[in-house]
């Protein structure tokens, strides 16, 4: 377990600028919203959805590599299906359990923009590492 944690800590995937920027914005927004009571309309509505997929897909890649020992990057179909599943759960399942969740088409658009950003990041990373 200690070795796995050590490997995860030293994994370059977790040092990707996209992942770090998304984590920073997510934490900054949560602190501003919950603790400092600062509300920005656009950020409150869409920022979480925008940063969700790059964070989730990065963590999913880490899980795949270190816990399932599949040393292949996340495929295009995995990105598409994960986005579809997350979009379905967040927009159609969660509203049944809490009134705070409402269906919004822009949520889905920002979710897909986040996935596209992750895909492009992986694409250029692989392309540059091949060169």
């Amino acid at each position, binding site marked *: 377990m200690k070795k796995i944690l050590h490997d995860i800590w030293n994994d370059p995937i977790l040092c990707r600028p996209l992942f770090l920027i998304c984590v920073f914005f997510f934490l900054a927004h949560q602190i501003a919203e919950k603790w400092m009571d600062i509300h920005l309309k656009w950020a409150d509505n869409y920022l*979480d959805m925008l940063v*969700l997929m790059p964070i*989730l897909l990065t963590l*999913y890649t880490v*899980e795949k590599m270190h816990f399932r020992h599949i040393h292949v990057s996340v*495929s295009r179909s995995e990105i598409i299906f994960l986005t579809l599943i*997350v979009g379905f759960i967040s927009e159609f399942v969660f509203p049944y*359990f*809490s009134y705070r*969740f409402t269906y919004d088409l822009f949520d889905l658009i920002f979710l897909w923009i986040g996935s596209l950003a992750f895909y492009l990041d992986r694409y250029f990373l692989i392309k540059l590492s091949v060169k």
Partner: protein
Amino acid sequence: MTKEKNSFDPIGTNAEILRFFKQQWNQIIDWLKAEPSDSFIVRILKAIGKVLAVILFILLSPVVAVTLFIAFLLAF
């Protein structure tokens, strides 16, 4: 009147129903084995299997479950 061998009786026992479905399943498998591997139906079934495997792989991921749970709690 004698009952025809291997015929399906709709008001049969569970064992008979299971035997019927097993027989049908074996027939499908035999038919698929006889099909060439590059035929249309085999390629379609392989694609469906691949999609289901990816979905199952994602749904069984603890990271995805935990992240969605946290996302739900943060907005709850």
